[in-house]
């Protein structure tokens, strides 16, 4: 077959086709990564901004971070937010996917359209409307809670770190659940009805059917959406910037992204901000490793 011959002949064509993509990736991502790594080992503060050459300081930026309780607090908060957010997203998303399989088509479509609307909202518009919903004086949330007998009138959600992170979590989960629900639902529709009916004939109740029959079959989807959500919940700079505009701004309200921005662009300490960036990159790459392995494995299998 000529097709096989065409593909096997060693030619420069594939490399030529890759050049534009590789160049733009080297420029837009490669150079910044290298810059971050180099700068994280340098003293790069305000003096360097005005032309003083950067000095190599070895691990000093990292040691500075390791001995800074404020950084540890930000790191711990980011990781906790990421884990709780991703877990809540996957659990709620899976529950909604299961719900979709149990309702008539028209109602399923209603639910899907509603989820799609939330998914489609641009992040900045979502942030403004959620901040308006949680407005302490005229927000709909405090009003509805008041109707339910919980007096939150004039409660300022964004001034206390705990409720601030609760609001951030609600927003992140609201935005991320649709993707999980649709992905898991697509996985569920591949589970054949016969298998489930056989299980119920054998006397399995709903929970047993889910745990013993459905869950193992959709496990690959669940693990991929979980890892994706862990990675995405680390990049919440936009969310937190808007929330901090409207509420608390001190370091108690920071996650890694806003901390990097404040230390780097704000305070001009690029060495330290680069070190935090490198740690953030390391966490992401660690998490991505699982996603990449899984994707490659499934890609080969299909």
């Amino acid at each position, binding site marked *: 077959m000529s097709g096989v011959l065409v593909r096997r002949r060693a030619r420069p064509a594939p490399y030529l086709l890759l050049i534009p993509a590789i160049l733009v990736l080297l420029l837009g991502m490669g150079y910044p990564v290298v810059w971050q790594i180099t700068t994280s080992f340098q003293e790069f503060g305000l003096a360097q901004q005005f032309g003083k050459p950067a000095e190599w300081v070895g691990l000093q930026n990292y040691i500075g971070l390791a001995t800074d309780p404020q950084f540890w607090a930000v790191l711990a908060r980011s990781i906790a937010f990421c884990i709780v957010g991703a877990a809540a997203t996957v659990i709620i998303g899976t529950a909604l996917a299961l719900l979709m399989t149990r309702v008539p088509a028209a109602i*399923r479509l209603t639910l899907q359209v509603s989820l799609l609307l939330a998914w489609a909202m641009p992040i900045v518009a979502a942030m403004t*409307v959620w901040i308006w919903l949680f407005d302490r004086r005229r927000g709909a949330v405090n009003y509805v809670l008041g109707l339910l007998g919980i007096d939150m009138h004039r409660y300022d959600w964004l001034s206390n770190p705990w409720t601030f992170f609760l609001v951030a979590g609600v927003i992140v989960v609201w935005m991320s659940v649709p993707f999980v629900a649709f992905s898991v639902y697509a996985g569920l529709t591949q589970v054949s009805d016969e298998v489930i009916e056989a299980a119920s004939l054998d006397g399995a109740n709903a929970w047993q059917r889910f745990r013993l029959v459905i869950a193992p079959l959709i496990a690959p989807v669940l693990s991929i959406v979980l890892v*994706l959500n862990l990675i995405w919940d680390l990049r919440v700079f936009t969310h937190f910037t808007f929330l901090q505009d409207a509420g608390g701004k001190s370091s108690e309200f920071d996650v890694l992204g806003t901390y990097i921005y404040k230390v780097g662009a704000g305070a001009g300490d690029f060495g330290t901000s680069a070190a935090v960036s490198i740690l953030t990159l390391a966490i992401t790459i660690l998490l991505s490793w699982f996603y990449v392995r899984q994707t490659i494995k499934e890609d080969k299998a299909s």
Partner: protein
Amino acid sequence: MTAVPVRRSKRNATRIGGVRPATIVWSVVAVVVAIVWAFPVYWMVNSAFVPNIELQSFIPKFFPVHPTWSNFAGAVADGSFFQALGISLAVTLIAVVGSILFAFLAALAISRFRFRGRVSFLLVLLFIQMLPAEALFIAQYKMVAAAGLLDTIVGTSVIYIAYIVPFTVWMLRGFVAGIPAELEEAAMVDGLSRTGAFLRITFPLLAPGLVASAVYAFLQAWNEFTVALVTLTSDQMQTLPLWLRGFVQASATRETDWGQVMAASTLVAIPVIVFFLIVQGRLTSGLVAGAVKG
């Protein structure tokens, strides 16, 4: 990596006669969830049409009884919205054209040729796709500044292309691989040149994939906030997300005019929602294609 259509469950059809009570309970739950989930979107549009005087009340208006366009008029009054719209369109256009062109060439290389480094390239793409802007944007700011491209459309768009290319390569790779090379070869046997065969046979078949990827790229560039915040620093060079943040901040210095802020948010959101609804099926299947076997 083919698109997996969301198949309708046939389970309901197999139920025997009547409606089960459990189905009614689940349906009620589903409708309540649907209302709760769509509520913020409804609330944005609703508040945009409620007159400011009514928004001042402590009792929320759940319906625009006296709808008005005045919030929209107020949001665009100083002309900065249209300036930001223009800049957003320019940045997005360059980012979409650039990323689709580069990604398309790369996807051709990957799915039409077997060559050394092919798998490594794919692996690197998957990793790059996951890199958070949070960890790179300070370096990207320094780089763009050093090149003298702060507050320019080119500086920001090039960074956007780098962020968008990896996923679009993955998306297009699936589409290109879905078109058998034998089709092109048959056309070449019939006397077309390689380029001719590609242009007349493969390219038209690829159109849906190119459109889906372009919409994905559009959404990424149009919604982007983090990189824009550091590379576009002047008030005259703001994309819509930056403009919206500035608008909220300016409004907050007085008593926040939520009617105008919601009108502004609606203006930013509507085109995105429309485009998103067109392309969403492909996005889901693209990200979890491997995991959902069709």
